[in-house]
């Protein structure tokens, strides 16, 4: 019964373009580079943030040459740059690191910009600070893999889905195929941490 | 647990080793190794220097210790009064044994071999083998083939140092194991590239398949980390 409730993974990832999505949890950065894939992407991050992407490390997932980074001094700039980039349509994916919850107006503006440009937007948010305007929200956590060495096993939970149901999967990045490979769907216990928030 | 280093490259291997044999022997004594082999590329030249260094060490170790401060000097006449007393030598100082050896690099085989003669006759054979190789080639070269090893390596311990592609190592090891059963080993040296565990596992499998037992070697290039810069410069010169 539980399995029947799960949405088909292929219909929700890769993320729906022309919409803004959200990701949180310790694996959000990995989720972001996988969402960006081979396309041209812009990563917007506050200038004070020390923890950078390591271009050699993202090589197995996406092409570092296609990745642009915008360093902003304030959150207002981040949002303005994001809006500009989403609306433009020259990029396939815009990734925004934010540190506070967006209000409905800000979220809506990003959503409209994404729609206008046909660009995928992804906000990397701290846990529990989502905006109501987001199309989907994901919680991503790396998992220890008992069986395989050098594993990329992760647990992806979709905790908000405007156009479908929620669910959770154990996934792995397949380097050969350069795509996300679903290992197994995870049943959601009712009322657990995976419930919509 | 005592350890003997069986694969040591001194500066008698041109543009490779970064330490003198003397330094290596001294360091081995400091670290309390049970034995050290000096194995330079197609030569025995470093062994001589290592041997004389070890002899000096032994002479020092066996003589008595005399310490100046035990002399008693009369403050007025500035004459020595009383006999200086020698200190008792601390027990249990063990100097490493020197193992004569060479690293044979062959023309037709990706595996390199450490040849460690076990007696005087084997030493003679090894010298003859090197002479043969050097006669064949021009200056500073040595041309040996696996077939030469098959003929002239009685009485030696042979340690195979496999190339990164282990598949190439199997056939030559098996050939020599057939000639010298019980005297062929597989040397596994750490590479420090993050995949050592996998490398050792693969070496162990190869050892099992070829029935050449695995031995630990360090593939030493210098006696102390401070020589790293020299080793790097030598590598640059060698690689051009």
């Amino acid at each position, binding site marked *: 019964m539980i399995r029947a409730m799960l949405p088909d993974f292929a219909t929700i990832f890769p993320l729906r373009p022309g919409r803004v999505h959200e990701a949180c949890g310790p694996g959000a*950065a990995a989720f972001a580079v996988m969402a960006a894939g081979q396309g041209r992407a812009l990563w917007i991050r506050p200038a004070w943030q020390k923890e950078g992407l390591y271009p050699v490390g993202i090589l197995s997932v996406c*092409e570092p040459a296609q990745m642009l980074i915008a360093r902003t*001094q304030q959150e207002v700039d981040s949002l303005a740059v994001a809006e500009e980039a989403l609306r433009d349509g020259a990029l396939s994916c815009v990734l925004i690191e934010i540190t506070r919850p967006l209000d409905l107006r800000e979220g809506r503006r990003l959503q409209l910009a994404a729609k206008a440009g046909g660009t995928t937007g992804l906000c990397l948010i701290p846990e529990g600070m989502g905006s109501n305007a987001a199309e989907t929200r994901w919680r991503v956590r790396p998992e220890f893999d008992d069986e395989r060495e050098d594993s990329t096993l992760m647990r992806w939970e979709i905790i908000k889905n405007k156009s479908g149901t929620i669910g959770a999967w154990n996934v792995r990045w397949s380097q050969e195929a350069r795509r996300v490979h679903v290992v197994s769907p995870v049943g959601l216990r009712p009322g657990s941490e995976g419930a919509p928030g | 647990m005592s350890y003997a280093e069986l694969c040591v490259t001194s500066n008698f291997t041109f543009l490779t080793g970064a330490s003198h044999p003397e330094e290596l022997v001294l360091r081995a004594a400091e670290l309390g190794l049970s034995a050290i082999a000096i194995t330079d590329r197609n030569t025995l030249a470093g062994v001589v220097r290592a041997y004389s260094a070890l002899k000096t060490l032994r002479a020092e170790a066996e003589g008595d210790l005399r310490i100046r401060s035990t002399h008693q000097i009369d403050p007025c006449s500035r004459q020595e009064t009383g006999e200086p007393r020698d200190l008792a030598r601390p027990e249990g100082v063990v100097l490493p044994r020197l193992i004569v050896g060479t690293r044979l690099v062959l023309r037709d085989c990706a595996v390199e071999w450490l040849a460690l003669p076990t007696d005087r006759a084997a030493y003679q054979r090894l010298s003859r083998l090197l002479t043969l190789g050097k006669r064949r080639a021009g200056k500073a070269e040595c041309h040996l083939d696996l077939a030469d090893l098959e003929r002239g390596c009685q009485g030696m311990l042979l340690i195979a140092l496999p190339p990164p592609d282990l598949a190439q190592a199997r056939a030559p090891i098996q050939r020599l194991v057939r000639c010298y059963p019980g005297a062929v080993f597989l040397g596994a040296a750490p590479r420090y590239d993050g995949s050592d565990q996998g490398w050792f596992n693969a070496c162990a499998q190869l050892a099992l398949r070829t029935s050449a037992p695995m031995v630990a070697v360090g593939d030493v290039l210098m006696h102390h980390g401070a020589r790293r810069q020299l080793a*790097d410069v030598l590598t640059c010169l060698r690689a051009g």
Partner: protein
Amino acid sequence: MCMWFPRLACDRVLKARPVEAPFALTLTDKNAERIYCLNAQAETLGLHRGMSFADARAFCPNLLSQPARPDLDARFLGALRRWATRYCPWVGREGEDGLVLDVTGSTHLWGGEAAMLDDMRARAERSGLTLRLGLGDTRGAAWALAHYGQTTGVLDALPVAALRLEAEVVTGLQRLGLRSIGDLKATARAPLARRFGPGVLLRLDQALGDVPEAISPGAEPPHYGVRLSFPDPIGLLPDVMSATERLLAPLCDKLKAQGAGARTLVLTLRRVDQGSQQVELRLASAMRDAGRILPLFERGLGDIDAGYGIDVMRLEATVVEALPVQQIGLSAQVQPDQLNDLITRIGTRIGLENVQRFLPADSHIPERSFIVAPAAFSAAESGWHSHRPRPLRLFPPEAISAEGARPPERFRWRRMSLTTGRATGPERIAPEWWLEDDSWRSGLRDYWKVETREGRRLWLFYTPQNPGWFVQGEFI
């Protein structure tokens, strides 16, 4: 005719800051400081050009000096060249310190040759320049008279050096007893040509006018600026935008004609009350398409305070790059343009240097294996490679408390207690000792990939030479 400024470099410096003492400019040449230029006072003391500065100081202890700036001298000569066009339209440079003018047909405007020469001398003297003039029928003759003669006269008595010959040739001719141009004219030509090559005879013929020599006037560097004045002040944003559009059109035409594109544009708006405001637009790539540049101004103009109105607008391309004409056609060509426009727009908001991209660098040290460069000033590069698994994120090393050369069983990192589930390693990375790097002072690093039972996969390293454990990255 020829104008020679024998002390151009000195005059330039002393014009700005006059001194009443022997003065020299020095230039370092082959590890020796040599005198590049002297003022008149220093010259009377017997110093000469090319002398080593140390010798000169020995001769003349109160010699003042300053390092020479040949680039500025060249610019100064350029300015003089422009000034000299007041006498005639054809003015070219002659070497590093001279000008050559074709005054044929222009002298009568000044009331004859003598009056023109007087005017030149007077003006040069007023501005403190040493000037020597030569007026001859040919370029060669004018040069000879300026350097060796008295402005006008005949060439025959001048030394052979006046023929613009190389020093060795001059010495050679003097050895043969050929001291003056007159001697040279009287000598048989064939042996001369055989001995010294055709150069001597060519110079001689040029000076005498038997072989023509053209003067190529220096080209005026193009100026990319346009202005627009309004009869009535304007203040509304749409008006300002349409004015900008009208300014852009001629500027872009000019850029196109020169095969150039603007990289930085400055729009100056002068208000009725004499105040002026500037909008600077830095572009991510060289551009000359008015239709694309105009919308990029929108944001900057929005912040302008028009006050009582704007009556003059001036648009200037301050940084210009060569932009050859390209065939437009394929859609692939359009894509980078669109991206560059986006970078420009984002750059006007957060600064163009804050839009960055990664470039690969050749180093095995993780922190140095890439560089971050402004996207507008670099091209995307491929050539990324990794032999070993590398973390997704890299951060400055964070110390954890642990001991021993093997990764700890359990450790605390960022207030989390983690248990090692699997550790892969070590991968030994040695510091690049030929570069000074404080963060690698602790020596070798043994890197381990530690997969924790809690899920996080971390990149730890151990420094065996100064025992300690650090976390430096996180894997996917």
